[in-house]
């Protein structure tokens, strides 16, 4: 396994299997009375978040704490970054305090990779701009694998704002690595430019017609419609988006009854996902959250517990 986790491309299929096996063991720890393992005792992890996040940050925080690491959260709001300090200075300052792991979210694509070149600490990408969000993709695939068994040959449909979604990019990479077939669905305005070339290389298909794709899906992933995009002219109105691409009650009926419904959260109920779908028995939204802690524990453990490869 490589030293940092910046992209799903950093991982081989064997790496992913190893991470999932360990995550399954970590999952058991969540059900224990003493939810604590000593593996990262004496090590420090900093969550450096330049963008708002509740679940990813708290998920990393819990994961680190259950492994006995000291976890410190720094968010850009109220930090020196808002006083105009550069990313490089912020990161170097933080690392000068003696940090072993840096979990970073930043609005600029490639920020995590850039940071990994500046510091000695292990860097984990918790979302960089419109590029990638590898731990989200891992927890999605892990959740689906627990529900469906091996993903080889399974058909996963990803729906939503593909242009701005780092979750989608990481997910396509991981699902394809694991042998699933992937169809991505979006309105033409939210389909990334140049996706035809990528889909050919990456081996996935694109569609504008959700109703046509859903009956064949073994799982469906709804992406969040970011409200701030609404004013961007990508679609005429929220209602129009829902009619074309929301997982409504009618569309729920098209889906196989045992096909898991994923959503990375936070959900806009009534916009991209109807309450009927969000609360359906086949919805795995909360499974994703608990899987998130287990998968992040596994990532922290594998990147940070062993011998430091740089030494």
């Amino acid at each position: 396994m490589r030293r940092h986790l910046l992209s799903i491309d950093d991982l081989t299929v064997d790496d992913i299997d190893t991470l999932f096996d360990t995550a399954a063991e970590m999952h058991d720890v969540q059900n224990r009375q003493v939810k604590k393992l000593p593996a990262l005792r004496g090590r420090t992890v900093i969550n450096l978040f330049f963008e708002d996040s509740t679940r990813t940050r708290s998920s990393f925080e819990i994961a680190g704490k259950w492994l006995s690491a000291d976890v410190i959260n720094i968010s850009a709001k109220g930090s020196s970054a808002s006083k105009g300090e550069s990313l490089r200075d912020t990161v170097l300052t933080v690392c000068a305090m003696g940090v072993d792991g840096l979990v970073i979210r930043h609005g600029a694509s490639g920020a995590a990779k850039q940071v990994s070149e500046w510091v000695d600490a292990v860097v984990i990408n918790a979302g960089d701009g419109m590029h990638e969000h590898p731990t989200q993709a891992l927890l999605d695939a892990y959740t689906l694998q627990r529900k469906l068994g091996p993903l080889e040959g399974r058909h996963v449909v990803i729906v939503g704002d593909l242009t701005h979604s780092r979750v989608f990019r990481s997910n396509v990479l991981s699902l394809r690595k694991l042998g699933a077939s992937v169809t991505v669905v979006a309105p033409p305005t939210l389909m990334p430019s140049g996706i035809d070339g990528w889909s050919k290389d990456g081996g996935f298909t694109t569609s504008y017609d959700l109703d046509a794709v859903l009956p064949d899906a073994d799982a469906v992933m709804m992406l969040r419609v970011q409200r701030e995009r609404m004013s961007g002219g990508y679609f005429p109105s929220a209602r129009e988006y829902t009619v074309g691409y929301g997982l409504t009650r009618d569309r729920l009926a098209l889906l196989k009854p045992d096909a898991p419904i994923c959503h990375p959260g936070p959900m806009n109920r009534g916009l991209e996902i109807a309450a009927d779908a969000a609360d359906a028995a086949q919805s795995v939204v909360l499974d994703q959250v608990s899987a998130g802690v287990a998968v992040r524990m596994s990532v922290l453990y594998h990147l940070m517990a062993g011998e430091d490869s740089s030494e």
Partner: protein
Amino acid sequence: MSAEQTPATPGAPATGGRTVLDARDIARALTRISHEILERNKGPEGLLLLGIHTRGVPLAKRIAERISTVEDHTVAVGSLDVTMYRDDLRSHPTRSPHHTQTPASGIDGKVVVLVDDVLFSGRTIRAALDAVNDLGRPAAVRLAVLVDRGHRELPIRADHVGKNLPSARAERVSVLLDEIDGVDEVRISDAPKSAVKEGVA
């Protein structure tokens, strides 16, 4: 978990050295340990045999089978992974943890018998005691090992020992079990140079 005493590749037969215990010796030792455990506990009630990965797990199962045969009473068996509790985590590449399995009823109030193949430095058992501590509060914890080869680095001793095997620190003791290695055998051999440098388990 006695990775240092066993072949680097699980399942690879140890080459060279001499056989200290053959299959029948191992069977007799396990039968005696089973009786000792029963005697000490005054019966099978409340016993939980926890095998320490890797080779303690099949050993715990075998002891449980023997106890069940003798007493006509099934004994709870589980497995314990101590990877996360080791004191040498940082000096090796990261190892994946194995599965820890305990009865759904938990380990509180049980008499836990830890089962491992080789007792050497005692560090694995120290890690196992910490792991047990996080799982619950047993009434007592005891230790059964197939081979005690000495060279303790911590104040730890076994309650039930299959064979005391005086050894030089540099020698290598390999326990091979049918379930994992396809043969039941305990061998002792001169350690390769690299293993001498690594020192202890």
